[in-house]
């Protein structure tokens, strides 16, 4: 149903020449599924939507290496769409050159990904299902609860497994820097495995603090099963609660971390408590 509708939309896009190609997943005669750029409507019979395969970064690379006015339609899930919007914000994609065909994720998929928004803002095919609160999940709670010592040990145990494949960075749709700070001796010692976990993983996590779209690509690419997405959860929560900001929703809204407290959103923000930290102590 959703597949047929997606195919129809894709066909329409190709036939009406709204875009030069539709980027999605293709299943071939051997049942091999892989990303494919559909440029011929006849090929669309082979279009599939499963499994979850993040296409945003691939789509961005296609757009960047194609002629300036080449338009690309991307069949994307919620996370893909958010990633693409973040890429637009970061000037990697020209907004005019991108069309999205939004498809909804299933409830099962949302549960696997711990996805809070398992649907794109612009939904074209499929039914929205409700999001999952990651903080209610047992796996997450294992890493985010307990006292400092317990958490530190749990995370250290996980992160020292890192084999420095850079997969988390390579798979991340937002990580676009070349060279990357993680390759620099100043921040992360090179040529050593296990790597310096505090710097490698926390620098990576923090660089994405306000742009992470919680797609889970890092985690899926990790050969040693480090739950990298959980690192982002509390920062995402803070951004949402304190500034009402969520990455990947609106291409016009920049991260609140980049602006002064007067601009965003803080006309009614009290001075943070630590401004008067000494004063407070006097009172007590």
């Amino acid at each position, binding site marked *: 149903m959703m597949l047929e509708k997606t195919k129809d939309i894709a066909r329409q896009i190709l036939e009406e020449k709204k875009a030069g*190609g539709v980027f999605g997943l293709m299943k071939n005669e*051997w*049942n*091999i*599924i*892989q*990303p*494919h*750029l559909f*440029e011929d409507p006849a090929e669309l019979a082979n279009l599939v939507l499963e*499994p979850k*395969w993040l296409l945003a970064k*691939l789509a961005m*690379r*296609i757009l960047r*290496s*194609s*002629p300036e006015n*080449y338009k690309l339609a991307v069949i994307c899930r919620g996370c893909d769409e958010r990633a693409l919007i973040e890429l637009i914000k970061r000037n990697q994609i020209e907004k005019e050159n991108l069309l999205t065909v939004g498809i909804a994720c299933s409830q099962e998929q949302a549960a696997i990904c711990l996805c809070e928004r398992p649907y794109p803002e612009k939904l074209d095919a499929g039914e929205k299902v409700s999001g999952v609160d990651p903080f209610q999940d047992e796996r997450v709670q294992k890493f985010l609860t307990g006292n400092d010592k317990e958490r530190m040990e749990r995370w250290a145990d996980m992160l*020292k*497994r890192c*084999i*420095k*494949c*850079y*997969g988390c960075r*390579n*798979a991340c749709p937002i990580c676009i820097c070349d*060279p990357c700070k993680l*390759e620099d001796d100043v921040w992360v010692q*090179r*040529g050593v*495995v*296990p790597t310096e976990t505090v710097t490698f993983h926390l620098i990576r996590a923090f660089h994405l603090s306000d742009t992470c779209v919680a797609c889970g690509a890092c985690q*899926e*690419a*990790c*050969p*040693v*099963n480090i739950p990298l997405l959980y690192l982002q959860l509390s920062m995402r929560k803070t951004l949402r609660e304190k500034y009402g900001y969520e990455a990947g929703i609106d291409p016009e809204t920049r991260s609140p971390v980049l602006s002064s407290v007067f601009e965003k959103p803080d006309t009614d923000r009290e001075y943070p408590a630590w401004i008067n930290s000494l004063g407070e102590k006097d009172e007590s």
Partner: protein
Amino acid sequence: MNPEFIKTICPYCGTGCGLIIKVENGVAVATYPDREHPVSRGSLCIKGWSAHEFINHPDRLTSPLLRKGDTFQEIPWDEAIPMAASKLRETAAKYGGDSIGGLSSAKCTNEENYLFQKLIRMAFKTNNVDHCARLCHAPTTVAMVQALGSGAMTNSISDLAGAGCIFAIGSNTAESHPIIMGEIYKAADKGATIIAVDPRETAVTRNAKIHLRINPGTDIPLLCGMMRHIIDEGLHNEDFIRERMEGFENLNEFLQLWPVKRAAEECGIDEEIIRNVAEIYAKAKESAIIYCMGITQHACGTANVLTICDLAMLCGHVGTEHSGIYPLRGQNNVQGACDMGALPNVYPGYQSVSDSAIQDKFQNAWGSTLSDKPGLTVTEIIGLAGKNIRAAYIMAENPALSDPDTNHVLESLKAFDFLIVQDIFLTETAKFAHLIFPSSCFAEKSGTYTNTERRFQLLRKAADPPGNAKEDFEILCLLGKALDLDFSYKNSSEVMDEIASLAPAYGGICFDRLERKGLQWPCPDSEHPGTQYLHKDRFTRGKGLFVIPEHTPPKELPDESYPYYLGTGRMFSHYHTGTMTRRSSFLNREVEEAYAEINPEDAAHLNVKDGEKIKITTRRGSIITTARITKRVSKGYIFAPFHFTEARANMLTNPVLDPGSKIPEFKVCAADVRKESQDG
């Protein structure tokens, strides 16, 4: 424009991960992991992620090259092939077919290896064909065939995740086979105990529950001590031994020589740890042993592997889904090259050249007489250069860096009357060649690779070879035809069909069946689904055999003039002789120059600071390299990766061979270290 995404297989280690190569305008521009791949499941290691980088390197060979004095001159293919054929033919005519040596490649596809050995064997009636498996897992093949009947990894990679205990000995899995390390962690997350045995501290030992930091070359004492304790405690699997094994009494008797106390002394660790580890291994429901070069690259390599087999069989930890013995293959197709008979003693499918029935089968099939005399090994072919071996054909191997005692190897390479090297780059070896064939890399050909879990996987062509370079398959066919052989294969699929018809274990393998997930041999017929794990109800040789291992300490131990242990090995961002990885900018950025690891205490003693130059000397030569001061190595131990051409660790290594498998002792030799003066 239309970028294409081509699924193929990673060209580095034996794990055989799935890659998707992105091709733009015929150029491979990026690599992505394959989410659907049965082994890697959407992950890759650092090398896999950069697999495309060397493909378009400007150093790629693009035309056949002919030596003119000290330089090379480009010549067309229609000169190069006849010249090669006639030179080889002349040599064979003059000195006999056994004067030709062929080094096949664990980097090439099964089909190419098959053709290569067929070419050598048919054209020159010699079995002088070998490849670098000799330098990594030759003892595995010898010993496991002796004990179990099959030289391959017994189980599948994914089976590891279900093991209750994983005993990793002599394997730096996290750096050499990172994706397999992920499976180990999966097991750990399910509660498995990870035990690591390594004289160095590595990512594996760091994440293991127990780390046994034994003295170099004391694997047999450790394992014997464990076995002795297992038998003493009655933890051995008596039913398994009674039903499926033979030779237990001999083993038991032999183990009387190895009380735990003696083992502990030899290894330099506590008795209690050996006991503890033995109990954990024996008591776990299913235990897996992972081993690698730390076991095999010793003068007692075969005995080491035999001891491992003994331990596994003693506890009955073979032949079930999650137990087994995991010799991790180092090269993407080292398993395949062995399978395809690129070995001096066997035809494809491990069929002995000395067996006359098998000889007849191949003579009939190939329409040619064949030699029944086992040929020479890699080290022997190189060692006898200019003497018994007058001409050699080296396909994508780099003995100038990979073989022990480099100085000697370099001399030998010069001694060939005629040397043909077929490679993608001008390697250290190719520099000695008389004739160089430019060939194609993994992304430029189709064929099959067999990974360490015996999985035939399809390689798909993503780009064309650069310039006039040709696919190895095509070069072999051309050369074969020039040598008057019937090498009129249209494509590698046809070769695969021929292999299937000749080697029963691969009888059911054909390209059509490999498309989706590959097949694990044995797969005798076209209905067989492939084999997840071996020795299920019976061993390949019938009953398993307990073989008595003979402990021989390393041949060269530290003494007064050479007071340090020296071991060689790999590190995570480089691969083997660095031909590909050092030309991948990303990988090279991680480690740019040669280094050797040295303990802080030793460094303080030598007054060396981190990053300063040191000179390492052994009886065979010396190198100057950068000191990396780290507690990874214990006091008195130096570790040098062998990837670097500017400081060839193999200049130093001891070429003494293991009698059973002819593997050199890379892992231990005695060395002296000095601080190199800054201006020198």
